[in-house]
């Protein structure tokens, strides 16, 4: 393929509409729609004794009230377990409206539909629910203790026991020269996109068809779920993801109760209905991620080389397991990162708590895994008296070890095999980028200013681009316009731009001629969704393949017209020409016209393709057997297995010993996502990921009290970073192409967030000399740690002497 646009930092095509307020987000749709609002459980665990709606019935503008009693057929059954797994032995999901027991604060109990949202909320306020409170389980420790059960038929609160190993870890630990064991904690955060969820549904009773807009990451599967739950034929349901204001994982979960209830109401009321999630609803009824307790045992030799690693993870999956155990599987399988660990065992207990369900948030289990691995590396370095960078170097998988087969099974059910990488290269670049060897001078300089300076680093490996597949359709119109569609959705990543770059490069057309549609089931019905840094890898390769199919057909038709061999033709700027023969050319748009033999000249271009327009070969039918009219092609890319991107981050912090405020003064990223389609977009993804990593390390947590009430369910109290909290980010790239796909690309979406907590914990520990075994950490927690008599004192080997140790 030509590489005219591949690798170029072309400006985004999405932006033209978004910077003038012409985006079309969910709540911008359906100006005349009725509004839905929900009465949600105020209790973390309670039985519904009675629902009294009588006072609400007097509200002027009320149109309908729905409770569980109004649900029939599949709608009355529990929500699906989206990703079943043999080791998820006790899956539990809620109902679209609470049937009898609410298992977390925020579960929807009653849906109200009214003329507008104000009126709907008036009615909600007048609905009186009598509750019988039940004992509440919050946090992994309480879940493990199992004094109370979240679900009575799961008395130990354990939803899944996941177990993978590569050898006899007990024997390997016993044979190790040195061992360490420790326990640490990782808190909850959440995707928290600026736009919450939302659903708009419109039913056409004349042809019994339903159009649903949802702020989703998986429109094709939402469509299938609606069809199944509402007992409709798939061809009567279309689902469109419009402009979506960020996802980061929370919108991959589906069907959310509202995605089923809003269409149901639209059908019953014969009128369009819309629900727009408000921020408090998003906090208490969407999804969170990350809380784990991690018990680690590691064996290593005199040189600090790991000989065995055993990890036991207690993973809080919240009240339900709608999304299966993908998150803890990611932790278990991605934990070892770039290191060559001869014997590894991961055991996960995924437990129920009376809190919002836990599903992937950018990074999806990997930040926790990296936290285990990198905190382990720091401990080994400290115990052995080695520089922290050096101990990591000694344990790296080397470039000649690829493909590196772990003997584990990844979250996509495929073997965990690293496709390619250069991990020593990453650390070399990071060392230079952050100035690792000059850190002692900086520490002294900061000390002179009364500040405690510390540095930390953390590499990671991220499985990206899992299957099963994505597809794409590419069509050239008689106008010369090129339509590209893929079923995968967009939440701001710049897919319209990147897929246009790929199609334009393959087809040899100007970028302006390409129009890209994503996440619209009317245009492309088969898709999986946007998650796991897979869009560029899977849909990107599908777009390139479909464009290649169009190119081949165009050259075949053009070769006939130009009486040339297809192999002698090239496409440049939308013109097909015989290489080296100026003047022998035909525009691609003319080929598009000729590709569709016509009877009717409905426009000027069509005239060229009608039956009397030119000489014809009467011995052949107008459309050859096996061929089809139109210059279009559909193709799919189904990867053999995941690609593996990698990177390494370093953080430098300065801490004020009076206030214990933690300031990240430098943040360095070396990033390898294989071949880069658009470096501007990749860097933007890294910037955003790092901001979320810093937020997760220092500010964000879901503060549940012991009654299961989320104490900080607003932007006033849940501290998402503003510009003032995000450090400047220095980025260096390394390109190790993936051998698994034709474009050589890996994914980039999640990379920025993964090692944030690990690197920053390491830097804080380095600065203050106290063990950091729980993240996030606030200034007051650091203050308490410094005053604690039991806090473990730790000393890092100075970075300047590391390589000599």
């Amino acid at each position, binding site marked *: 393929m030509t590489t005219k646009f591949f690798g170029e930092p072309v400006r985004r095509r999405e932006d033209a509409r978004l*910077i003038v307020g012409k985006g079309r987000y969910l709540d911008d749709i359906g100006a005349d729609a009725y509004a839905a609002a929900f009465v949600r459980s105020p209790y973390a665990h309670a039985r519904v004794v009675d629902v009294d709606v009588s006072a609400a019935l007097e509200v002027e503008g009320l149109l309908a009230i729905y409770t569980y009693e109004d649900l029939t057929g599949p709608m009355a059954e529990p929500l699906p377990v989206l990703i079943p797994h043999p080791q998820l032995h006790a899956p539990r999901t809620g109902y679209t409206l609470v049937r009898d027991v609410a298992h977390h604060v925020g579960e929807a109990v009653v849906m109200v539909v009214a003329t507008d949202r104000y009126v709907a909320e008036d009615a909600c306020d007048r609905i009186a629910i009598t509750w019988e409170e039940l004992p509440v389980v919050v946090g992994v420790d309480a879940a493990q203790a199992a004094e109370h059960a979240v679900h009575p038929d799961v008395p130990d609160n354990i939803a899944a026991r996941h177990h993978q190993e590569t050898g006899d870890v007990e024997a390997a630990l016993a044979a190790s020269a040195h061992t360490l064991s420790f326990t640490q904690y990782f808190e909850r955060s959440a995707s928290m996109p600026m736009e919450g969820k939302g659903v708009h549904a419109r039913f056409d009773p004349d042809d019994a068809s339903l159009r649903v807009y949802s702020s989703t990451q998986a429109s094709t599967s939402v469509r299938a779920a609606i069809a199944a739950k509402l007992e409709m034929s798939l061809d009567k349901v279309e689902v469109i993801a419009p402009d979506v204001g960020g996802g980061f994982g929370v919108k991959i979960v589906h069907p959310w109760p509202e995605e089923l209830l809003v269409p149901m109401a639209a059908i019953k009321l014969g009128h369009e209905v819309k629900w727009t999630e408000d921020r408090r609803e998003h906090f208490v009824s969407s999804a969170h991620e990350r809380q784990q307790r991690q018990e680690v045992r590691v064996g290593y030799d005199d040189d600090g080389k790991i000989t065995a690693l055993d990890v036991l993870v207690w993973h809080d999956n919240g009240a339900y397991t709608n999304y299966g155990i993908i998150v803890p599987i990611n932790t278990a399988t991605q934990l070892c990162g770039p290191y060559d660990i001869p014997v590894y065992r991961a055991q996960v207990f995924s437990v129920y708590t009376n809190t919002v369900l836990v599903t992937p948030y950018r990074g999806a289990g990997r930040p926790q895994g990296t936290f285990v691995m990198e905190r382990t590396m720091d401990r080994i370095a400290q115990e052995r008296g080695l520089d922290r960078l050096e101990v990591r170097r000694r344990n790296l998988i080397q470039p000649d070890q690829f493909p590196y087969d772990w003997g584990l099974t990844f979250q996509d059910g495929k073997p965990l095999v690293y496709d390619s990488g250069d991990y020593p290269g990453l650390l070399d670049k990071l060392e230079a980028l952050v100035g690792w060897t000059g850190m002692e001078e900086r520490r002294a300089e900061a000390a002179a200013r009364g500040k405690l300076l510390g540095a930390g680093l953390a590499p990671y490996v991220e499985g990206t681009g899992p299957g099963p597949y994505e597809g794409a359709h590419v069509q050239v119109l008689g106008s010369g316009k090129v339509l590209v569609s893929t079923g995968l959705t967009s939440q*701001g990543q710049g897919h319209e731009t990147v897929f246009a770059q790929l199609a334009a490069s393959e087809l040899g057309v100007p970028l302006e001629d390409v129009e890209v549609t994503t996440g619209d089931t009317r245009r492309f019905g088969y898709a999986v969704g946007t998650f796991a840094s897979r869009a560029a890898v899977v849909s990107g390769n599908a777009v390139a393949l479909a464009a290649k199919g169009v190119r081949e057909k165009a050259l075949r038709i053009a070769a006939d017209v130009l009486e040339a061999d297809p192999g002698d033709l090239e496409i440049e700027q939308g013109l097909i020409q015989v290489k080296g023969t100026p003047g022998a050319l035909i525009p691609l748009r003319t080929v598009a016209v000729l590709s569709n033999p016509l009877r009717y000249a409905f426009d000027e271009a069509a005239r060229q393709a009608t039956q009397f327009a030119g000489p014809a070969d009467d011995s052949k039918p107008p459309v050859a057997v096996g061929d089809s009219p139109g210059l279009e092609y559909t193709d799919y890319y189904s990867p053999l297995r995941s690609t593996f991107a990698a990177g390494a981050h370093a953080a430098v912090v300065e801490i004020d010993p009076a206030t214990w405020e933690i300031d990240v003064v430098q943040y360095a990223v070396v990033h390898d996502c294989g071949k880069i389609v658009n470096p501007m977009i990749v860097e933007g993804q890294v910037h955003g990921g790092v901001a979320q990593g810093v937020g997760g390390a220092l500010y964000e947590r879901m503060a549940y009290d012991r009654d299961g009430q989320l104490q900080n369910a607003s932007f006033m109290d849940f501290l998402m970073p503003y510009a003032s909290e995000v450090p400047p980010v220095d980025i260096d790239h390394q390109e190790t192409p993936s051998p698994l796909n034709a474009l050589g690309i890996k994914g980039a979406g999640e990379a920025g967030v993964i090692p944030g907590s690990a690197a920053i914990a390491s830097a804080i520990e380095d600065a203050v000399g106290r063990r950091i075994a729980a993240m996030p950490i606030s200034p007051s927690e650091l203050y308490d740690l410094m005053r604690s008599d039991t806090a473990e004192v730790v000393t890092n080997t100075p970075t300047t002497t590391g390589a000599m140790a």
Partner: protein
Amino acid sequence: MTSIQTERTISVTVNGVPREATVPVRWLLSDALRHGLGLTGTHVGCEHGVCGACTVLVDGEPTRSCLVLAVQVDGCEVTTVEGLSRPDHQGGEVLHPIQEAFRECHALQCGFCTPGFLTTIAAGLDARDAGTPISDEEVDELVGGNLCRCTGYANIKKACRSAAEKLREAAS
């Protein structure tokens, strides 16, 4: 018997166009703009005044439209993201330099918070002496009050500096 007035007619100049509207007195300005006038470029991110996505200009001052009732802007001039561009006197539109800079610097991803940043920064840039180079402190001040979950703010700051520079060139 007292009667409760639930609606009121207000006169507002929105994006330069004088308008009259009868709105429920409890409607937020954000709802009146979005659902009353169809100006959906103003986005609602938190409805408690923290994220800044809904920021519009009321008589030129950045204002969180989720914290203001529509009836409170009776007699005011309101500018939304749709009103930041200016006619080019040839039937087209000229974007505000900060809008151009956002695109040029990749300062937006999902675009949901973008209108609030654009209105806030545009007001700040228009209010300052365009001939003076912008300082880092000024940039921090202009972008510091709004939340963005996608970009990590680096490119928003870059766009700020770039737009200020364009304005400086135009002023000199």
